[in-house]
């Protein structure tokens, strides 16, 4: 903590501040462009940092890391396409808000919540890195398996429609995750076509599942008269939204805490923090069925969680060199290039650079919120683009974004095929969010189960390995609670609906 304050002024040198501001603005734009993932943005910038001072280079990467995640929310809210898996939960309520003419308000909620969550996460990181690093180290195969299972229990809650369809979509996603060569066993699975040899990578899947159905939907409505919703910038809503946002204490705190916890779990994919927080806020809400129709609490929960994740996700990264998300993995490469090796050494012999980096992340949260709010004022221009032009532009960006992840046209084919399938699925009531969650969690669940099984068989046996130990038991309890609560609320909902129809029948 002391070191943090001591080195804080280093982040304020003119050159570092300039890089911070440019990185933030650039990151917001790149993040807001559908099809371009934060991972790609950071990977593109790593070579730029070669010729910079280590601290300045890291300030740039940190600013871009922070702002692309928030920028992804812009396209999620305005055109229903998330910039990163982190933003999926944002669009569930953010896009309905935009459709109701509240795009600007939704964006304000998004950036203010991001700031609150982001600062919360950074504070936790600055104060509690050593104990949290100890906890992160405790997560082995059995614990990770249960974490993945917990994520799977969330799937049912991510659709506003049928629970069964939500779960079916999730299973489909889990199945997609096993396509290609099994990294553990080296066996090909479900490689029906040559393009599937490498499996389905997360970014092409994300782009396909969200952008392609959106393009076709735009086409469906392309020549219809639009409902006259006012997209004009509204004056004076900033402060009102600000006050309203801070009153949503429950959503903010659940989001921030869930985001922080998931960030600390090494390799869990901070990618799912938003979705899990969204589900928790929904479960604790008095009116869970308003979620998915434009409830601002959904946006608040999702965005506070995925920015709260940024700081804590650096704990396993900086102390154990275990990245929590693909973007963090690229960031790790950026650190290594400058001779900064994660571990205790980083905080001792490279304290100056490390703490400057951390300080700049705090500043980046503030800059991201400021410039984000400013950009939100112009959101109406995006909403005014005619559907036809929007469909064409989004397609080009989707193809480009998918291609450039690993320079592969095969990925583009996979993206488009999966997207077309999703479009058909959407027509009959499936949604994309559980599918993406399945793709992310599938590998985590399978790999850790197999690894755990191998280890258990040399040691205490399968049952004892997976069902003993405090951490295992805690996560199993959480899984049980999650399933139990979902079932309970489903039954209650069913009874309510029945009572309503009965009352109606009696009335008529």
């Amino acid at each position: 903590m002391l070191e943090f304050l001591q080195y804080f002024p280093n982040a304020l040198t003119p050159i570092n501040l300039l890089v911070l501001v440019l990185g933030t603005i650039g990151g917001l734009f790149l993040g807001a462009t559908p099809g371009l993932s934060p991972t790609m943005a950071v990977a593109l910038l790593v070579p730029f940092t070669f010729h910079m001072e280590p601290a300045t280079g890291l300030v740039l990467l940190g600013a871009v890391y922070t702002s692309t995640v928030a920028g992804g929310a812009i396209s999620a809210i305005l055109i229903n396409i998330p910039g990163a898996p982190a933003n999926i939960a944002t669009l569930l309520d953010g896009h309905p808000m935009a459709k109701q003419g509240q795009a600007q308000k939704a964006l304000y909620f998004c950036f203010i919540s991001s700031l609150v969550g982001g600062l919360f996460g950074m504070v936790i990181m600055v104060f509690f890195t050593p104990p949290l690093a100890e906890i992160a180290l405790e997560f082995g195969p059995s614990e990770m398996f249960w974490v993945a299972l917990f994520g799977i229990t969330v799937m049912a809650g991510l659709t506003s429609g049928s629970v069964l369809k939500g779960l079916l979509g999730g299973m489909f996603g889990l199945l997609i995750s096993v396509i290609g060569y099994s990294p553990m066993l080296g066996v090909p699975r479900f490689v029906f076509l040559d393009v599937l040899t490498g499996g389905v990578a997360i970014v092409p899947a994300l782009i396909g599942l969200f952008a392609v159905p959106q393009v076709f939907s735009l086409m469906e409505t392309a020549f219809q008269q639009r409902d006259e919703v006012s997209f004009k910038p509204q004056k004076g809503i900033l402060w009102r939204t600000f006050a309203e946002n801070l009153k949503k204490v429950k959503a903010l705190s659940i989001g921030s805490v869930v985001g922080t916890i998931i960030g600390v779990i090494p390799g869990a994919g901070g990618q799912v923090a938003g979705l899990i927080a969204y589900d928790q806020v929904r479960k604790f809400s008095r009116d869970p069925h308003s979620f998915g129709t434009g409830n601002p609490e959904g946006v608040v929960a999702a965005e506070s969680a995925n920015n709260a994740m940024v700081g804590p996700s650096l704990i396993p990264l900086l102390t154990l060199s275990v990245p929590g998300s693909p973007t963090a993995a690229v960031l790790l490469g950026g650190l290594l290039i400058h001779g900064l090796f994660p571990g205790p050494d980083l905080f001792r012999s490279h304290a100056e650079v490390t703490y400057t980096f951390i300080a700049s992340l705090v500043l980046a949260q503030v800059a991201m919120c400021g410039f984000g709010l400013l950009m939100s004022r112009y959101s109406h221009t995006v909403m005014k683009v005619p559907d036809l032009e929007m469909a064409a532009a989004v397609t080009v960006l989707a193809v480009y974004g998918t291609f450039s992840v690993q320079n592969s046209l095969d990925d583009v084919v996979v993206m488009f095929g999966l997207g077309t399938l999703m479009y058909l699925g959407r027509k009959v009531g499936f949604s994309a969010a559980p599918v993406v969650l399945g793709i992310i969690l599938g590998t985590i669940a399978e790999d850790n189960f197999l690894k755990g099984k191998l280890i258990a068989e040399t040691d205490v046996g399968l049952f004892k390995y997976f069902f003993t130990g405090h951490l295992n038991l805690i996560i199993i309890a959480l899984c049980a609670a999650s399933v139990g609560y979902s079932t309970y609320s489903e039954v209650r909902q069913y009874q309510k609906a029945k009572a309503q129809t009965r009352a109606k029948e009696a009335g008529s």
Partner: protein
Amino acid sequence: MAGKRFSKPLAAAMLAAALLLTLGGLAAAQTYPDKPISMIVTYSPGGATDFQARIVTMLAGDKKYLDQPIVIINKPGAGGQVGWNWFATKGSKDGYTLATYNVPHFIAQSIMYPTKYNIHAFEAVANWGADPAVLIVPKDSPFNNVKDFVAFAKKNPGKITVSGAGMYVGHHIATLQLEKAAGIKLTYIPEKGGVPAMQSVVAGKVKAGFNNLSDAFRNQDRLKILAVADLERHEFLPKVPTFKEAGINVDNSSVNYRGVVLPKGAKPEIIKKLAEVFPKMFGDKKVLGKMKASGSPVKIMTRDQVIKMFAEREKYLQGLLPQLKKKK
């Protein structure tokens, strides 16, 4: 007369044309490269191969070397197979597409899997690094040396879990060699890369592991390093014995070599040019400085040395691996 008068300029023109063509041909070889070169890295951005590749090629744009930058393209998947398959079948042969290789990974894969490549699908250019595998155990492990380790494994066959970066990578080969040489049985746990494999050892989730010397060197306060799978001790870890010194016949076949290849069918002039420039570029003070700062062991080898190394490794692995396949 007219004919004669006419023929002189004609002859001159023809001569000039021929000269121009030859010169042009020479010039084409001399001006190569005249646009940026792509280099395929078969692992994700941020991994050891990726960032080392970025460091060793950072000076390519310098006038002294290629005068054109090298752009890294990541094509990860299936332990590198996706990228190498693509490179072997679709990589352009005009010298503007290069790829990095990892030995023994790609050779072992070409023996064990139906890949579209083997050592003959690539033209070696140069090698920049060699990272030996080291046997590591958690800090609080009861094993203090290879002898303890082997003695325990003999009494408890299959009870020692050994983590490594994946199937048929150097760490896996080292595990197999150790099993064979010491007559013991271990349980190999393939992980998704060197970093998670290291993590399992540090956290005590597995009893031991094979990992990159450079990574073990950086984490040495949290580990015990028992032995190096190489012929000599390494300058980073002068106190750690080799397996041979510890009385176990494990050689350097698992050392992870990293370098650059062209696809088969590339023009000899281009191979020659790159094979001349790359070792010099890898040896530049700036590159060496960055490599040292990032803890990456450097081993520069020329094209001929790499070709020899490929052939030796293939021969050895062809002997080692099929027995294993049968054992399963």
